[in-house]
C-alpha cells in the first residue's frame, strides 16, 4: 500500500507497518464466512433452507441468479431498533417456526452476520430450541466478516458441518463405493473417467461439494473410501468424514497427467485394487502422456505469468493447493512459469517462503492490486497470462493473451482439451 507522494502523510508509514505485521504469509484471500457459505449453498441440491440472521443487506453478498435454492434463502431482516436494542430473538424464532411449519425442510442452516456478532447475539439458543420443538435439524453457525477468515478455513468449516449431519440409513451393499471431495464444479467426472473407474469395479458414491447435494452430505458414511483434494487444507472435513466411518485419502487436483495418475493410483490403493485401476487407465495414460510430450516438444519453454490470491471464491478446485492446482500441469507441458501473488510487495519474502515450503520453485513476484498486474507482467517481459476472469479485460487491452484461472478439465480425459486451450493461447494474436 505504501507509496511516495506529497499527499501521503508521514504518519501513514507507521500505520502501514502495523498493517503489514498483521498479514500472514498464507496465500488465501480473507473472506466473510457468511457470504461464502451462502454462495456455496445456493446451488446445492436438496430440501433445506438457509436463514441469514442480520440486516437485509447481508442477503446481498452472494449471487442471487445462479442457484436452484435462491427461493429458500431468508433473512431475519433486523431493523435498526432490533439491532441496537438486542431484540433479535423474536424475529428469528418467528421465522424458524414459519419455515418449519410451512416448508418442513430436511435441514435449516442459520448463519450469523457482522451486526449480530458485534452485539454478541447468542442465536444458537433460539435455533436449538426451535429445532427441538420442530424435530427438524437446525444448525447455527456464527459466521461473519469480522474474523477475516481464510477461504480454505471457511470451506472446511462448511463442509465439515455438512458432513457431520445426521446420516441417512445406509443401503446394504458390497460395492466399492467411492466419494470424491474437492472436485471441480463442471465435469468433475467425465464419461471416460467414469468408465475407467467402473472397469476397475468402482461405484461413484458422491462428488463433493458441487454435485452431491444435501442427501449426498447425509450419506457420507456410505462410501467405502473417500478421497479429498488437498486434504491438508481441510482438516475438519477429514475428521468429520472419518468420524462418519469412511476412511480418507488425499489426492492432488487431478489436472494433467501426473496429478491425474497420482489421484487414480491413490484411489486404487484406497480400495485395494491398485493393479485393476492401473490396467484400466493404462491406455488413456499413455495417450495423454504422448500428447503432453508432443506439446512440450513443439513449444520449448513458453513463458507465462500465473496470477493467484486474487479470487474470492467458494469453488473448491480454485482454492485447492492455494490456487496452484493447475501449476503442475503447466510445468509438465514445459511452461516457464512466474507466479504473481496479489498482496503487499513488502511481504514478498514471506510469500516466497510459503511457496518454497509447498515445493514450488518458480520465480515469485508480489503485486498490490489488479490494476497493477499488467504492468508487472510487462516489466517481466511476459507475453502470456493465467489469471482470474475479472482481470482479462486488462490483459486484452494490453495485448497479452490470457487464459482464465481454473478452466482446465480434470483427469486424463481432460488433457486433450486442455492442450488445445494452451495451443490457442500461444497462437492468439499478440502472443510472443
Amino acid at each position, binding site marked *: *500500500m*505504501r*507509496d511516495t507522494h506529497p*499527499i*501521503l*502523510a508521514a504518519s*501513514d508509514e507507521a*500505520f*502501514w507497518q502495523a498493517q503489514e505485521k498483521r498479514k500472514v504469509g498464507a496465500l488465501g484471500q*480473507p*473472506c*466473510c464466512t457468511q*457470504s461464502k457459505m451462502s454462495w456455496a449453498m445456493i446451488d446445492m441440491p436438496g430440501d433445506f433452507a438457509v*436463514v441469514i440472521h442480520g*440486516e*437485509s*443487506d447481508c442477503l*446481498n*453478498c*452472494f*449471487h*442471487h*441468479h*445462479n*442457484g*436452484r435454492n*435462491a*427461493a*429458500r434463502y*431468508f*433473512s*431475519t*431482516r*433486523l*431493523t435498526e431498533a*432490533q*439491532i*441496537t436494542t438486542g431484540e433479535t430473538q*423474536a*424475529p428469528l424464532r*418467528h*421465522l424458524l417456526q*414459519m419455515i418449519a411449519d*410451512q416448508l418442513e425442510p430436511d435441514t435449516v442452516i442459520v448463519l450469523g*452476520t*457482522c*451486526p449480530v*456478532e*458485534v*452485539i454478541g447475539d447468542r442465536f444458537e439458543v433460539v435455533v436449538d430450541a426451535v429445532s427441538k420443538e420442530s424435530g427438524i435439524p437446525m444448525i447455527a453457525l456464527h459466521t*461473519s*466478516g*469480522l*474474523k*477475516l477468515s481464510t477461504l480454505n478455513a471457511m470451506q472446511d468449516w462448511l463442509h465439515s458441518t455438512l458432513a457431520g449431519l445426521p446420516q441417512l440409513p445406509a443401503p446394504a451393499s458390497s460395492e466399492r463405493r467411492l466419494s470424491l471431495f474437492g472436485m471441480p464444479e463442471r465435469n468433475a467426472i467425465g464419461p471416460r473417467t467414469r468408465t475407467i473407474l467402473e472397469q476397475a469395479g468402482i461405484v461413484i458414491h458422491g462428488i463433493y461439494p458441487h454435485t452431491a447435494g444435501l442427501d449426498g452430505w447425509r450419506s457420507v458414511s456410505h462410501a467405502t473410501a473417500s478421497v479429498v483434494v488437498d486434504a491438508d487444507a481441510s482438516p475438519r472435513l477429514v475428521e468429520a468424514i472419518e468420524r462418519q466411518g469412511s476412511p480418507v485419502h488425499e489426492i492432488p487436483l487431478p489436472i494433467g497427467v501426473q496429478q491425474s495418475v497420482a489421484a487414480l493410483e491413490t484411489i486404487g490403493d484406497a480400495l485395494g485394487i491398485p493393479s485393476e485401476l492401473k490396467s484400466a487407465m493404462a491406455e488413456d495414460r499413455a495417450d495423454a502422456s504422448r500428447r503432453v510430450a508432443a506439446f512440450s516438444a513443439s513449444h520449448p519453454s513458453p513463458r507465462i505469468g500465473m496470477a493467484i490470491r486474487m479470487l*474470492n471464491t467458494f469453488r473448491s478446485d480454485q482454492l485447492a493447493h492455494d490456487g496452484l492446482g493447475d501449476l503442475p500441469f503447466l510445468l509438465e507441458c514445459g511452461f516457464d512459469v512466474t507466479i504473481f501473488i496479489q498482496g503487499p510487495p513488502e511481504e514478498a519474502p514471506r510469500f516466497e517462503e510459503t511457496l518454497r515450503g509447498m515445493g514450488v520453485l518458480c520465480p515469485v513476484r508480489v503485486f498490490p492490486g*489488479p*490494476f497493477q498486474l499488467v504492468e508487472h507482467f510487462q516489466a517481466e517481459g511476459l507475453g502470456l497470462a493465467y489469471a482470474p476472469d475479472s482481470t482479462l*479485460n*486488462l490483459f486484452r487491452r494490453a495485448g497479452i493473451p490470457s487464459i482464465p484461472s481454473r478452466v482446465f478439465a480434470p483427469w486424463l480425459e481432460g488433457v486433450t482439451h486442455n492442450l488445445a486451450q494452451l495451443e490457442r493461447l500461444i497462437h492468439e494474436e499478440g502472443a510472443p
Partner: protein
Amino acid sequence: MTGPGADLHDLAHYALGSMSLGRLTGVSLGNHAIPDAFLLMHVGVGCKNKATAHLLSHDWAEHGNVREAWTEVGDRDLILGSSTRAAPYMRSWVNRMHPSILLMVSVTFIDLAGEDLKDVVARAAKDLPCPVALLPAPGFSGDMYTGYATVLHAITQRVDWTPDPARASEVTLVGYLFDRYEADHSANLSHLGKLLGGIGLSLGPSPLTGRPLAETLGAGGAGTVVELPYTRPLAKRIRKSLGGRSSVETDLPMGIAGTSRWLRVVGAAAGADASRTDAFIARREESTRNQLRFLMDRWRGFRMAIFAEPPLAAGMASMLAELGMLPTLIGLKGTSLGGREEFLAAVKSDGVALPDEVTILENPSLAAMREEFVTRMRSRALEGVLGSATDLNVLTTIAAEEAGLEGSTGPLLIEIGFPCRDHHAIQPMPFFGYSGVVVQAQRITSARRLWDTGRDPLLP
C-alpha cells in the same frame, strides 16, 4: 404483522426477493457510472461482494472491481477503533488512482461503534486533490435505487446549475440508470440524442451516464433539465440541488406511445416547435410500426410476465401491449421508485389498457414468484417472462413435469434490468426510444425458451 405490537411478518417478508439488493449495491452502480470515480468502502470483507458480485456478471465491458477498495476492517479494528483506518486508505488510493471524486461508504456494524467517521473523513479530505463524498449506505433500509440516487445527488450538488444556461437547446438527463458500459446504454443515449435532434434539441452532458465527471459537471449549461424516475428516492434533495432551476419530470422514453409522449413533454419544456415535433413523431411512429407489422399477429394474445422496477416495468408493459401481447403478471421491484400506483399511472399515460386479468405483485419474494409461475404454467397462461437473471433463475428451477407441461418448450425468457447474466450487448441494442421497441421485439422473437425441445412452441 402477525401480532399486536410485534414487528413480525409473514414468511414472504423474510424471503430473498426479486430485488433484495440494497444501498451499497446502488452506490457501487453509481460509482461505476462515473468512469474516473473511485469507491472506498469502510466495510467488512463480505460487504465488498454487495458492490461487485452482481455487477461483474452484468457488465462484461468494464469490470467494476478495479475502481473499488475496502479498508480491511476486522474485529480487532472494531475494538480498537476502526475510523483511524479511513484516512491512510483515502490518501493511498487517491495517490494511486487519481480519481475525479472519491466516494465512500460505511455499513451498519461499523456505525454501531458510534465513531465519528464523518469527521475523520472530512479532515482527511482537506488534504486530497479530489472531492470526497461520504454516502449513507445502511443495510437495514432503502434499496439499490436509493443507493444509486445517493450518488446522483452527490454529483448534482457539484454541478454549477447556472440560472442562465448558455446552451438553450440542450437537454440534460438527471436520473439515468447507467449500470454497464455495454452497447445497450451507449445506444440508448445515442438514440435519445438523435430523437432530440429530430425536434431541434440536443442531448447534453448528463450525470451518471458513463462519462468522466468533469464532462458531466457541465450539465448545468443545458437549457432544459429532464428528471427521469430514478431520482425518486431522493427527489426533493436532488431538486433542491438544482439551485432554483426548474426541471421537467418524465417517465422513461419507452414503447412507441411512451417515446412520443416523452418527446412532446421534453419538447414543450424546451420550447421546441410543436408542429415540427408532431411531424417528426408521426414519421418515426409510422416507420417503427412498419418494421414490426409482420410480427404482430404471431404474438397477439401472448400472456407475458414482467419483473422490473416500476418505471422500467411500465415502459415494458406499454411496449408489449403495443406489440399485441398481454402483460398479465407484473412484479414491481424495490420500494423507493414507487409501486402499483406509479406503475399504473405511467401505463395509463401511454393510453395503454392492461388486460383485466393483470396481477401486480409488489416487491415479490422469489418463492412467491415461483408459485405464481407454476400456477400460470399449469393453467397454460404464461407464454413469456421478462426479468433479471435473478428472476429467470427461479424459472429454471421448475421442471416441465411440475408445471404440467411435459414435452412443451415452455415460456420465452428475456433478460432485462439488473443483473443480466446472459444478455450482453456487443452491438447497439437500445431499450429506449423507437429503436428500443424494434430491438426488444427482435430479442423476443429470438428469445430462448425455458425447456427448449426444438418443437413448434404453438403446438400443445
